[in-house]
């Protein structure tokens, strides 16, 4: 049953060294504040899962939290590279990073299989691609009915999944709106689920088909207004595309990156004191 906790307690209790940790949110609702808390608590040897590592994994990898990454697209959308991810893969800095890479279709299916309690996902994927040669988790399976060769990948079953959402009601039920990505799947596939929300309200005020996660499939909820910044929270604040562009220069250089993290994450005065909308670092 969902427990309302402060962000630092939620992370301290549910994210441990060596865990497999997913932070999902497809461009939208990326749980930056939670990722920053993991960095502040200096978690190590994590296996990180995200379809699109984005700036948050660039930051976590650059700060040495991860030893392995499972992903499907590791760039800064519309801008270019994730320089800290590249430095880890190309030069082993700050630590070697093992990677397992998929396509989006396969990762989406792996999440769905995890939520469905299946050991693997089946898709018509990777045809003619070299990815199966470099990722031993991509295999083939024959359809017992038609004989078709299909791709199989293991289900995603993290120790803990962390997502950001718009709101929770006082009972701990959570509403996710807009681009819903794989958030529901990630929460249901994990052993533990931590959710940060913009606000807690009396009524979720939903429609019958809304994406609502019931309190009893969530372990902890932390209220963190602005917790998805510089990504966005539909209905609350827009994606800060300017910051996404500025990140390129910050992350390109090891020292500039370290200074930025020190000033804006490590020494932030409160858990969600990252630079807010409109301000640049």
């Amino acid at each position: 049953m969902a427990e309302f906790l402060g962000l630092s307690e939620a992370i301290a209790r549910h994210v441990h060294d060596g865990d497999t940790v997913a932070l999902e949110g497809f461009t939208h609702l990326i749980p930056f504040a939670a990722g920053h808390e993991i960095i502040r608590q200096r978690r190590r040897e994590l296996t990180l899962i995200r379809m699109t590592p984005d700036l948050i994994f660039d930051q976590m990898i650059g700060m040495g939290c991860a030893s392995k990454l499972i992903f499907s697209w590791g760039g800064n959308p519309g801008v270019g590279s994730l320089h800290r991810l590249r430095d880890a893969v190309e030069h082993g800095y700050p630590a070697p990073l093992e990677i397992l890479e998929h396509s989006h279709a396969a990762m989406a299916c792996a999440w769905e299989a995890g939520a469905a309690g299946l050991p693997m996902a089946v898709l018509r994927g990777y045809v003619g691609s070299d990815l199966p040669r470099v990722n031993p988790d991509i295999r083939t399976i024959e359809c017992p009915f038609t004989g078709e060769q299909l791709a199989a990948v293991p289900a995603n079953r993290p120790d803990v999944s962390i997502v950001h959402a718009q709101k929770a009601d006082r009972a701990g039920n959570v509403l996710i709106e807009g681009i819903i990505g794989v958030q529901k799947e990630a929460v249901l596939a994990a052993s533990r689920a931590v959710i940060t929300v913009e606000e807690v309200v009396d009524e979720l005020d939903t429609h019958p088909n809304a994406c609502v996660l019931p309190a009893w499939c969530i372990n902890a909820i932390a209220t963190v207004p602005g917790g998805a910044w510089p990504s966005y929270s539909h209905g609350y604040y827009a994606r800060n595309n300017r910051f996404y562009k500025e990140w390129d220069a910050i992350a390109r250089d090891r020292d500039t990156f370290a200074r930025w993290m020190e000033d804006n994450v490590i020494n932030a005065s409160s858990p969600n004191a990252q630079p807010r909308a409109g301000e640049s670092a």
Partner: protein
Amino acid sequence: MNASPETSSDSAHDYTAAEMMTVTASRALGNGTTCFVGIGLPGEAANLARRTHAPDVVLVYESGTLQTRPDILPLSIGDGELCDTALTTVSVPEMFRYWLQGGHIDVGFLGTAQIDRYGNLNTTLIGDYREPKVRLPGGGGAPEIATNSRELFVTVKHSTRTFVEAVDFITTLGYGRDGRARDNLNPETARHMGRGPTRVITDLCLLEPDPDSRELIVTSLHPGVTREQVIEATGWEIRFADALATTPAPSTHEIEVLRELKKRTDHHHSGTEASGERSS
């Protein structure tokens, strides 16, 4: 599925090679086509098409935004603009499983970092996989967009860095290392596969696969572009079609609409309106 380029009677006189590429790519999309739009240049072309000759083109993005009509070009494929202007937004698993793998997409439209003689795409890395010289973002939606859409268009700037004899890594299948990969598939797989890359649109020319060898050949040169320019910008011994055409120049209307769209977009992404006010 036939594109309906605007007449050339009002051809623009002043346009860049990049604009020529975008306009030509936009003209490839017919009205009513369902198009799965990749990140970058394809989005520019697809949204230009929707604002000119193809108002009913159906644009879907991997973020789950179905039939979207953005007023500005999104920076990422998951900007709020795409969701705000979509007919509906579905989950990412639903997008890939039902809408793409389920066979509802006419055209996949992708950019790439490298493309080779047989239309294979590499967005994974330059060099060796375990010791990459340059690590690129990876596959994303591309591997399945390229095989599960009925056909694939690619748009990318022409240079020897991009147009290579053989890609370092096949992230996304064109026609395979020998041009035969799609012909040699198990029939049960082949039955569900699209035709592969049917058009590659660059800032110099249009390339299409040779019907027999599947090798990409130049079928149309953009106005003012010479064969030598294309030869110099291509990393393999590029061939030209016997009936080599000249690509129609952009119309003044297309150039106006494109510039207006880009101006609005640049203003949006650098301005304060993207900076955190309530979006709805």
